[in-house]
Each structure stands twice: as structure tokens, then as C-alpha cells.
């Protein structure tokens, strides 16, 4: 089986990468974060046609929930943030990892509940109105949190440092992100093969028709977004521990960085495909790291150009292009009239 070989090789590469390139441990962990936010963005954006610009809300909220849970397991949150993470607050190994585990779980669940509540309002909107509505939620959340002193206001929060060797810590964070990313990938691979996958595609292709056929469209939309929010919330939680210090506008609710990048990754890789977001995230991240390192000063221009070229000239994305050029790789055949057929 070609596919089994391919998957095995990829898994091995993922497992040894941080040991092969120890200097790039953090970049590689960030690559997995990009894959995670791209895969989860595509869940609603690509598969269901609901382009959220607000998924970054779940990332930031996940960070804060994880931090609050971790701190409040041991200390009073207000005292802790008043001292701005000053040295009197110590965490043992057990407290650190208990905080991380419980905090991540709480972050995921809290974000999923938020998605259901926000979705109840915003899913009445379609097309660009949904995108702008969700963006508004993320921007408002950033502003609200930066005025909320209990969680450190605009200063943000500093979490305890990894309680062990810092190089080992980098590898731990790499595998946390990688494990989450692989878990999400396998989950989505399964999900897209169930009724859920078809229902999302039906909503994307013609939501009025889907309603007319009796589909529980709102139920599917809320559940899909809640699942995306759950995973992004956990990713935010892990990021909070990895970054140690984060603040609301530039890190947590970073609408113009990660909030936009996740969309670009998906568009670049190919909307509505399982591999598109993964491929897009890898290409985008490499492009971004290279421009940041070698074209400093021009990096935003290069990035902007990449976005414009993708959106204007390359809407099918890398996977869409590959499917058109090499349909046989995907079990598709093309009949004489140029129409694509799927394999049985």
C-alpha cells in the first residue's frame, strides 16, 4: 500500500524532526500550530462554506482559560496578576502539569461552549457578513480582556516556566502540538467520511436546498464550529505555556497575524480538502520564516504579495491544482468531455 508507506514516512519525519534540527525546535512547534489552526479553520471555512475570521478568539480565550485554571489551582488569581508574575509564586512539577492538563481541557470545553453561544447569533449571517461578524467578536474580546485587571489587563499574564531542562521543554511542546495536530487530522479524516462530512458540504453548496430537504442545518453548523473551537482552545492553552508570557492584543487575540494566517494557509493549500490545510501551512510557514530571516523590512510586503497572488490567481490552492493536474493520484478519472469522476 502506497498510502501506508507515505503515512509511515511522514510520521517518522514528524517524530525525529526536533532531534534532527534542535535549533529549530520552536519553529517546528509553531509549524504544527499553523497546521492545527488551518485544519480547524477549513472545517467550517472550506468544508461548510462559513468563512470565520474569528477563530483567533478561541486561541486567545484558550490561553486565558488555561492560565486562570493553572493559577487558581494554587494561588489567588488577582494576587498573582497584581504581582505581574513576580518571584514569590512557585509551582511544583505536579502543579505545573496538573495545571496544563486541566487548563487545556477547560480551555477546549469553554471555547466549544463559546462557539455554540456566538454561533447561535452569527450563524444567522451568511457570506461576508458572517466573516465580519466573527471578526468583530475577536476584536471586541481582545479589547475587553486588555481592560480586565483581574487577568492582568493590557500587561497580560506570565505563566510559570517549564519546570525542567529548557531544551527538553522545547521538545515537550513540540510533541504536544504535534500530537494535537495528528489527533485532529485523524479525527477530521474520520469525520469527513461520515454523514457529518456530507452535511457540511451540502450546506456549503446550497444551504437553502439543505434546509428544504429537512437537514438540521443549525445543529450541524454549531457542532462543526464547536469542534473547531475545542481544538483551537487547546492549542491556545499549549501556546500559553510555551510562550510563558502573553498579552491580549499582540499574542492572544492576534487578529492580523495568526487570525489571518490560518485563512491564508488554507487558501494556499486548497479549501475543502483534508491535505490542503496541512500543505498550505507548511508552505506558508517556510515562506514566512525565510522572508522574516532574509528579507527583514520587506517581510510584510512579501507576505501581502503572497496573499494577493493566492486569492486572485490561485483560488484552487495547491491541492486543487494537483487534483486537476494529476486526478489519477486521487482515484479520480476524467471522461472525454473533461468531467471528473470519483472512484467507487
Amino acid at each position, binding site marked *: 500500500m502506497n498510502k501506508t508507506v507515505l503515512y509511515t514516512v511522514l510520521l517518522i519525519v514528524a517524530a525525529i524532526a526536533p532531534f534532527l534540527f534542535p535549533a529549530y525546535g520552536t519553529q517546528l512547534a509553531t509549524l504544527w500550530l499553523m497546521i492545527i489552526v488551518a485544519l480547524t479553520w477549513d472545517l467550517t471555512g472550506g468544508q461548510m462554506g462559513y468563512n470565520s475570521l474569528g477563530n483567533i478568539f478561541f486561541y486567545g480565550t484558550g490561553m486565558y482559560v488555561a492560565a486562570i485554571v493553572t493559577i487558581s489551582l494554587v494561588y489567588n488569581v488577582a494576587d498573582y496578576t497584581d504581582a505581574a508574575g513576580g518571584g514569590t509564586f512557585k509551582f511544583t512539577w505536579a502543579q505545573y502539569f496538573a495545571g496544563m492538563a486541566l487548563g487545556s481541557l477547560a480551555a477546549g470545553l469553554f471555547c466549544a461552549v463559546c462557539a455554540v453561544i456566538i454561533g447561535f447569533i452569527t450563524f444567522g449571517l451568511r457570506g461576508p457578513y458572517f466573516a465580519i461578524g466573527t471578526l468583530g467578536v475577536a476584536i471586541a474580546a481582545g479589547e475587553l480582556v486588555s481592560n480586565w485587571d483581574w487577568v492582568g489587563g493590557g500587561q497580560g499574564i506570565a505563566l510559570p516556566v517549564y519546570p525542567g531542562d529548557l531544551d527538553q521543554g522545547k521538545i515537550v511542546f513540540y510533541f504536544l502540538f504535534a500530537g494535537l495536530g495528528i489527533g485532529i487530522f485523524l479525527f477530521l479524516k474520520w469525520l469527513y467520511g*461520515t454523514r457529518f462530512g456530507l*452535511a457540511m458540504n451540502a450546506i456549503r*453548496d446550497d444551504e437553502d436546498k439543505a*434546509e*428544504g430537504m*429537512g437537514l438540521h442545518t443549525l445543529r450541524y453548523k454549531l457542532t462543526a464550529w464547536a469542534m473547531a473551537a475545542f481544538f483551537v482552545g487547546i492549542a491556545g492553552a499549549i501556546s500559553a505555556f510555551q510562550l510563558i508570557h502573553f498579552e491580549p492584543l499582540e499574542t492572544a487575540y492576534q487578529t492580523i497575524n495568526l487570525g489571518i494566517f490560518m485563512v491564508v494557509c488554507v487558501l494556499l493549500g486548497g479549501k475543502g480538502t483534508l491535505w490542503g490545510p496541512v500543505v498550505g501551512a507548511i508552505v506558508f510557514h517556510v515562506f514566512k520564516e525565510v522572508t522574516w530571516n532574509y528579507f527583514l523590512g520587506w517581510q510584510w510586503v512579501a507576505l501581502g504579495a503572497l496573499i494577493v497572488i493566492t486569492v486572485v490567481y490561485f483560488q484552487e490552492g495547491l491541492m486543487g491544482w494537483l487534483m486537476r493536474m494529476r486526478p489519477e493520484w486521487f482515484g479520480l478519472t476524467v471522461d472525454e468531455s473533461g468531467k471528473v469522476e470519483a472512484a467507487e
Partner: protein
Amino acid sequence: MSNIIEVTGVSKNFGGVVANHDISLKVKKGAITGLIGPNGSGKTTLFNSIVGFHPIDEGSITFEGQEISKLQVQQIARLGLLRTFQQTRIYGKMNCVENMLISIPHRRAEFMDMFASHSKADREKALSLLEFVGLYEKRKLLGGDLSFGQQKLLEFAMALMNEPSVLMLDEPTAGINPTLINGLIDRLKKANEQFDITLFVIEHNMRVIMNLADQIYCLAHGELLAEGTPEEIQNDSRVIDAYLGAH
């Protein structure tokens, strides 16, 4: 035979346009009922009112004795009252089999049913219905790659997959290759007799509707003009005038 749909005194305006005025009609359970009338006479508007696509201004609509005029589209569909669109609507980026599989009835769908895998029975039913409408060979094509007529057939098959008790078809033969129309009439009759589906059909083609329907209603200028058997309608001078006047 009992009435499965009863429309009583329904009116619908769009701004100043009176699309339907005080319309009352009945669809008999198990029968094929026709709805005819010149272009713009309000046929599609009446269909939209019945399936809850838009709120009505006045009147009452019942399905199996239950008032449905305040229900939402999805709720009405789940009761077993389904419609096809005059403009034809299918899922363009999904292949024919996928279009069929997601069209299963959602009447009793529980939360966990969202994550069900496609059962063998559903697959077989999807394929046999595609065969029934003559699209089996095209089953792997994307819905959007089919011709307009083929999309109409796919939409019809999707509706059958949903196992409705009443199927409302908005101009099912429009855009279909004339040589295939007789076959389509046969299939509509089969759906009615063998699958036990009550049909309510808007049709512009007089020959088709005379061939198909047990009872026919005729609209003109948003009002009910005449009703009767195909013979009665064919010989009704008001109907003839309405159609001639429309040209």
C-alpha cells in the same frame, strides 16, 4: 380519499404585487394533483407558501390535519412534505451518490446520527434510485457537471430518497429533452403508485399535465380560476382564454 394538504384563503403580496389572492385548494392523499396557469400567475409563490419558504399574509395551510403555515422550512420537510425547485437545486460540488446519501430522511435524526456512517442499505437505495431516474452511469460525476435536465432528474431522485408522503414538483419537465418526457411521466406515475407518494405538480406543458393528473387547479393573475378533472379543465373556456390571453 382524504385531503393531505388543505389550503384555505391564502393570500401573499410582494410589496404592491398580489402574487396570490384568497386561494383555497385541496390535495387528495395518494392522488396526483396538477397546478397550471400562465407565467407569473402565482404557482411558484403558492408552493413557497406551502413549504414555509416565506410567511403568508392571510389564510391557513394544513398538512395531515396539522396547521403548518407558521412552521419553518426544515420542520415542514421533516413532516414529509417536500418540494423540488423550478430553478433546480442540487449540491454542485458533490457527486451524484453523495447528493443522494445526504438526502435520506432526517425525520427522527438524533444528535449522534450526525456521526453515522453511510449504511449499506442507504448506498443500495441511492444507487437503485439513480438507476430509476436513469443516472446510474453518471453517478460519479459532480452534480454541477450534469446538464440542466440531468440535474432535474437528480433532484427528483434526491426527493425520492427522502421518502416524503407528499412531493411537490415545480415544472419537472421544463428543460428536459422532449424525447425523455414520456419516460419522466412514467416515472412520476410509478413514484405515485409504487412508492405511494402523493404528487402535487406545477406544469406548463398541457399535454403532460392532462396525461398525469387526476385533479387540476388553474391559477390566473394570482387567483384561482378553475378546478376539475383534466377533461373539465381542457374544455373550460376561462382556462383557454387565460392561456390564449397570456400569449
